């Protein structure tokens, strides 16, 4: 089992998704920051704001290309590596992906070319509209992707159809207004805004430390600090909303994040620190904060947050119901026509179909879930516990970083309000070294959301292990190694180009501080020859 196709498929998906997610948050956030900067330019007419838009636009462009290239991979992979998934939930899951293309990605990708090539071809206001359309497109894009992802976490508005052997939409409005999707959308785009704000803040702080491009750096820091503070606050607050909803819809995820092995009397304590051990089912060196988890998770002092052991115990009864549903399903499918389906089978299926997915959990151990032994059922019950240690720590790193971003952006917000941005060089250094941290937080967030959903690919409906395509291990190894090779090379080139563009800065002939860009309006581009190693 060392080259298990399920593990290989998961490895490839996780790798390509985490990689894609390096570029997406920056695109989402930077697009909005560009639009804000260009709005200031159009409203005030001051050329420095156009130069800022163009400069950050160059970095945006390098990042955008990588986001597009790695995004195509994501869309193709559902069919390539997860063919049973695609068959089983395509009726529901495919729609938001297709709508994303129609409503959002087309907008974003069509206007991004005009953003770069259109400066001299249209009026100021028209170009501003183009920039906003790129920003709106990339945010709408996130909305539809997270509606799709939210449905994986909380499959609302759909039901299983025995005739077609798949999930089908029953209430599209419920898919759209899925509360989990809404919370995730706001949380994720706010995270994107935070990533971009810290990026702009850090790069500008570096210029400030070097005494270069001070006009641009100071203004950029002001935008980044205020936008970043609002975003970082919103990430944490809406992350909390996300957590609250998880307690309703994904109890196991919450219990695992908290390493809460046993149900505690309400209000439950929050374990601030510890080393969860999945084998012995206990947390070593735990430091508890009384009441906190109960408050976050249930927003009451009286409701219980269920622990892992109790959840597993109740899952076993779900598995038994699932087997009944599976049995009835086979009878229904064996009937040659609707009229021949025994009424009893139909009634059994109606009664238990909600737990059909739990029977599929047994497919790891036995081809026909009806043949499962009590040991298999117990094992499948414990399979429902995701990797507790990874979740526990990913979550804490993410939250800790989130708090740090609030502190950092708040500090710079105050400094900028007092016009003392460069008063403390050590703070500028902190901002420079903080640049990679929001990416760490974002990737941890992905791990919490998606690893926390395991062993399900669709919570309670379809286990990850049965969702894969029947591919050979060699085939998977070829594609995994191929992606690793290409992605590594591209990452190195991408970083070099980003750094080169940053080192080169916005203009070869920066105005001395205090001297306004007098001639800038007469000359459309203050950018140098082959601007910043430029292109879109």
């Amino acid at each position, binding site marked *: 089992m060392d080259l298990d196709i399920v593990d290989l498929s998961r490895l490839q998906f996780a790798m390509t998704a985490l990689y894609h997610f390096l570029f997406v948050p920056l695109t989402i956030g930077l697009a909005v920051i560009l639009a804000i900067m260009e709005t200031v330019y159009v409203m005030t007419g001051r050329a420095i704001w156009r130069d800022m838009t163009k400069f950050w636009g160059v970095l945006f*462009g*390098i990042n955008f*290309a990588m986001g*597009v290239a*790695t*995004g*195509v*991979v994501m*869309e*193709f992979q*559902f*069919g*390539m*590596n997860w*063919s*049973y998934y*695609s*068959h089983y939930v*395509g*009726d529901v*899951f*495919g*729609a938001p992906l*297709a709508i994303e*293309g*129609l*409503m959002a990605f087309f907008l974003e*990708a*069509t*206007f*991004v*070319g*005009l953003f770069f*090539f*259109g400066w001299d071809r249209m009026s100021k206001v028209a170009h501003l509209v183009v920039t906003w359309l790129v920003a709106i497109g990339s945010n709408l894009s996130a909305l539809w992707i997270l509606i799709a992802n939210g449905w994986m976490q909380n499959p609302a508005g759909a039901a299983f*159809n025995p*005739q*077609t052997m*798949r999930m*089908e*939409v029953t*209430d599209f409005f419920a898919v759209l207004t899925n509360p989990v999707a809404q919370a995730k959308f706001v949380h994720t785009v706010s995270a994107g805004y935070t990533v971009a704000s810290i990026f702009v803040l850090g790069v500008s702080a570096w210029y400030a430390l070097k005494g270069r491009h001070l006009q641009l750096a100071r203004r950029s820091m002001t935008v980044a600090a205020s936008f970043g503070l609002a975003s970082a606050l919103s990430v944490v607050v809406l992350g909390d909303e996300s957590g609250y909803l998880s307690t309703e819809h994904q109890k196991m995820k919450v219990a695992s994040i908290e390493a809460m092995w046993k149900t505690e009397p309400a209000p439950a304590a929050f374990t601030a620190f510890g080393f969860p051990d999945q084998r012995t089912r206990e947390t070593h060196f735990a430091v508890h904060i009384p009441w906190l988890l109960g408050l976050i998770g249930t927003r009451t002092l009286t409701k219980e947050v269920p622990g892992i052991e109790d959840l597993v115990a109740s899952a076993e009864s779900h598995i038994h119901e699932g087997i009944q549903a599976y049995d009835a399903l086979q009878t229904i499918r064996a009937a040659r026509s609707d009229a021949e389906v025994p009424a009893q089978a139909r009634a059994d299926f109606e009664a238990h179909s909600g737990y059909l997915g739990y029977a599929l959990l047994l497919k790891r151990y036995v*081809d026909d879930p009806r043949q499962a032994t009590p040991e298999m059922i117990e094992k499948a019950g414990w399979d429902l516990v995701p990797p507790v240690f990874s979740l526990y720590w990913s979550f804490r790193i993410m939250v800790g970083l989130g708090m740090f971003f609030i502190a950092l952006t708040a500090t710079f917000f105050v400094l900028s309000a007092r016009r003392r941005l460069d008063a403390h060089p050590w703070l500028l250094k902190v901002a420079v070294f903080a640049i990679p941290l929001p990416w760490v937080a974002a990737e941890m967030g992905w791990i919490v959301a998606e690893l926390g959903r395991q062993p399900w690919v669709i919570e309670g409906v379809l286990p990850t292990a049965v969702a894969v*395509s*029947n*591919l050979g291990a060699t*085939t998977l190894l070829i*594609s995994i190694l*191929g992606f690793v090779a*290409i992605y590594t090379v*591209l990452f190195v*080139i991408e970083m070099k*180009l980003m750094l*080169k563009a940053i080192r080169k800065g916005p203009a070869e002939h920066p105005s001395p501080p205090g001297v306004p860009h007098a001639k800038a309006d007469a000359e459309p581009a203050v*950018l140098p020859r*082959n*601007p910043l190693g*430029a*292109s*879109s």
Partner: protein
Amino acid sequence: MILHTLISYEVLRLIWWLLLGVLLIGFAVTDGFDLGVGMLLPFAGRSDIERRVIINSVGPVWEGNQVWLILGGGAIFAAWPQLYAVSFSGFYLAMFAILVALILRPVAFKFRSKRDDAAWKARWDWVLFIGGFVPSLIFGVAMGNVLRGVPFRFGTDMHIFYEGSFFGLLNPFALLCGLVSVAMLLMHGATWLQLKTEGPVAERARGYGSIGALATAVSYLLAGVLLWRFVDGYHLTSALPPDGPSNPLLKTAELHGGAWFDNYRSQPLLWLVPALGIAGALLSWLGQRVRRPLLALLASGFAIAGVILSVGVSMFPFILPSSLDPHASLTVFDSSSSHLTLFIMLVVTVIFLPIILAYTSWVYSVLRGKVDERAISEERTHAY
């Protein structure tokens, strides 16, 4: 939701079959010239500045064009989930090769002009060539294999099993279809270059494009003859209720020589579709000879539409026949999404497709005009 029953399931399936064609044609007609331009890059451009002119002729639009492919993938997923599941997993390594090309292409666009180093640039030029050639070839080869039938079957609980290999895809008929596709997109890219550039680049493009147009007509005709004489088609041997459940295992079908021409026999007007493919290619050739690049580009677009539509028309109602188990073949009436999903997706498409077409045309009109060496060296734009 009762609203969706306003349009019958049968009609919705037919509309989505047409829309599948529209999306494939949208992709081939827009991103097609980007791919063709990529293939022509090392040949139509000799000096660095010429090659930059070529790249910048598609510079502002290729990103938007490529969305047709992404939209196509998403729409197949949403409207034809089984087609998406079987074809993407079955053609796994071919899809992987397309992905590699599609990852490298944007990157090559971005990175090529970042260093003033001839070897660096030459390397990216070949990446752009491969990034245009490989997807063009594979899309054609895939079409050829779809026409021959693909070795897949359904196991318990509708799990999909594909029992072919990557090299099995490279049979002579499919390779000929690959050639049709390469010639067609080469012609298309060349006509685009003639429209957007002038001087030696446009002249060379005219040479290659004329050959591409003739090669398209000849290879397409040849593929048609082979399809008729040597490739068995599929036909239904049981009823297929047009509003039945999307379960491909409820009907029967079998292989039958010349079956892919049944639809033309029963509806002779359909011959207009392949005729459009050939006439479009010939008109494009003529347009290039008499130096009417816009005419040549439009004609080549019609040729592409004719060729792609003819594949769909020949196979209807099949969309993905199974050579391993013909009864399990996917057809328009038993492998779509549910009635409700097709309806919702149609509403969204009816609203947004015209908007997309409107703003895409607006962007093209803002960017109209020739790309020449002066425009690039003026550096007022963010040229590649």
